[in-house]
């Protein structure tokens, strides 16, 4: 049987000053690691929330994002009448959209950041029921009116309800604020697509993407098959969620890789702190170790015991790190969406599974920092160690 756990718990408690450096080091590492993962997770969640399973987004074949895509009005007519598109008394639920990027000063710093301006059809709110006007009203077709996403209205100076703003060679009035349920649309400005094309002196009746609401989530393949088989169209169709999930992938991966790299570098420091703590524990307790060996505890029991002790320290660090990072949950931050080069607000998402990952990482540090000292403890020559005072 093993050396009792209480031996390690009390030993750590008795020498907590020596353990504190390792605990703090591991806590800091775990906090940074989880914070980076929470950043990636929040970013991803925001983009993924932008898509609905019942929606399909249509782009020109080969266009990796809306920005590079192009769809003509003739094509729009074909697509909105394709099978699988939901209709109501006002016709098909489809929105042909044009997007541009415009610079506005950030409220916090006064420096300019890019905002994505989305020209939509008046049916855009029907296509995306998650987007709701919460103040003012929707834009009138044909007028230079803007509705502003919740995060955008907060993040930028001069986008309040009723404000007049000048961009793209036109004067616009902010007539409404919408809530897009925490999705990427919350960072956008919406207006009439035809007005947008006019103001930006783009050719009329040219759009960049088209989003349709399907009769059901299962109708995608029916719609997709019909649209891609049509000789008048050269388009690609994605489920909207998947489109946004794909958009989030690059930055999510970058943050995750970067976060892991930083955590590894910090982790090396924390492992050295743990090694130091555990080596000194072994050095100070040579006679105790030798006594247990004399009583008949096997070398393996000593290894396990000191490993457990290191894991206890690591666990304390891991839990502390989680506590430190928890207040970040829900904190809003912003980044550039690299697919569209526009500013995107999103919140840190500290999920239970990320916390578990953080604790797992701390235990990994505990094993790496604890194993060499534990092996040294087991290899201690018993007779010599018993002579120590």
């Amino acid at each position, binding site marked *: 049987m093993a050396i009792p756990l209480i031996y390690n718990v009390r030993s750590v408690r008795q020498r907590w000053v020596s353990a504190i450096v390792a605990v703090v080091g591991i806590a800091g590492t775990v906090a940074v690691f989880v914070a980076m993962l929470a950043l990636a997770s929040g970013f991803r969640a925001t983009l993924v929330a932008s898509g609905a399973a019942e929606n399909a987004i249509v782009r020109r074949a080969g266009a990796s994002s809306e920005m590079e895509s192009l769809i003509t009005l003739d094509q729009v007519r074909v697509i909105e009448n394709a099978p699988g598109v939901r209709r109501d008394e006002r016709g098909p639920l489809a929105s042909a959209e044009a997007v541009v990027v415009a610079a506005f000063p950030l409220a916090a710093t006064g420096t300019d950041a890019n905002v994505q301006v989305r020209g939509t059809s008046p049916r855009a709110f029907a296509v995306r029921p998650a987007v709701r006007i919460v103040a003012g009203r929707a834009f009138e077709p044909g007028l230079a009116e803007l509705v502003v996403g919740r995060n955008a209205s907060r993040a930028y100076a001069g986008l309040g309800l009723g404000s007049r703003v000048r961009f793209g060679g036109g004067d616009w009035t902010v007539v409404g604020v919408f809530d897009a349920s925490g999705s990427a649309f919350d960072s956008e400005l919406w207006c009439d697509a035809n007005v947008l094309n006019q103001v930006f002196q783009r050719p009329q009746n040219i759009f960049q993407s088209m989003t349709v609401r399907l009769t059901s989530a299962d109708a995608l393949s029916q719609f997709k098959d019909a649209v891609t088989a049509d000789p008048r169209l050269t388009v690609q169709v994605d489920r909207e969620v998947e489109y946004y999930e794909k958009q989030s992938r690059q930055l999510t991966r970058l943050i995750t890789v970067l976060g892991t790299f930083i955590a590894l570098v910090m982790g090396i420091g924390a492992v050295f702190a743990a090694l130091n703590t555990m080596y000194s524990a072994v050095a100070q307790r040579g006679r105790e170790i030798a*006594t*247990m060996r004399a009583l*008949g*505890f096997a070398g393996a029991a000593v290894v396990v015991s000191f490993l457990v002790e290191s894991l206890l320290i690591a666990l304390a660090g891991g839990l502390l790190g989680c506590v430190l990072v928890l207040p970040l949950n829900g904190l809003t931050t912003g980044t550039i969406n690299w697919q569209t080069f526009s500013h995107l607000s999103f919140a840190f998402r500290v999920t239970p599974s990320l916390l578990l990952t953080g604790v797992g990482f701390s235990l990994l540090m505990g094993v790496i920092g604890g194993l060499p000292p534990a092996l040294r403890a087991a290899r201690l020559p018993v007779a010599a160690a018993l002579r120590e005072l």
Partner: protein
Amino acid sequence: MVRVDGEDGAETLIRVRNLDKRYQRGSEEIHVLQGLNLDVGRGEFVAFMGPSGSGKTTLLNLLGGLDVPSAGSITVDGDELTRMSAAKLTRWRARHVGFIFQMYNLLPVLTAFGNVELPLLLTRLDRAQRRRQVETALALVGLADRMDHFPRQLSGGQEQRVAIARAIVADPSFLLCDEPTGDLDRASAGEILDLLTALAREYGKTILMVTHDPRAAERADCVLHLDKGVLVEAAGEAARA
């Protein structure tokens, strides 16, 4: 019967033949034990004396399987220690040896109960059986009421009694005591010696004890001197004293 001449007698528990132990210190070799012989019968209480550095601790460490000899053999109850692997020797120690050290060597973070329970964690006894046995051992050394005390809350004599309880709790074949009273005042030392004597006389324990103290040695059935790497019987000296 205790013998040091290497002649085979009946009824020996511990049989040591031509035991050699050398230590290497830098380029210098120290030849501590030089062909030592010893036979100890079951239930015997033997004291070892000898000047500092004569190799008493070295001998006890070899007998207890904590160290390996340079040459020679140690047989306990038919088991030849020098033939055992390190892992087997560890298991053998747990079953057969009870150690009592000069500095008690209790684990400071465990209570008296926790310390005495340690050897039982290596047996198959369940929790309740362990508790009963620990309580019996602590009662035997007169510390039933100090079970939940930590070593720092005990006097030196009490600590050594806890150590004795720990040494006997798993009922080993023999006890090895290295200067068990070396760090105690006279009264506490007397109590410890009374306890060891009782263990030998009333409970038939085999005890091998190293001591510098003639008063301790005289409690033993037999006093052996370690001299130039071998054991000699103390008869001559006893006669002179």
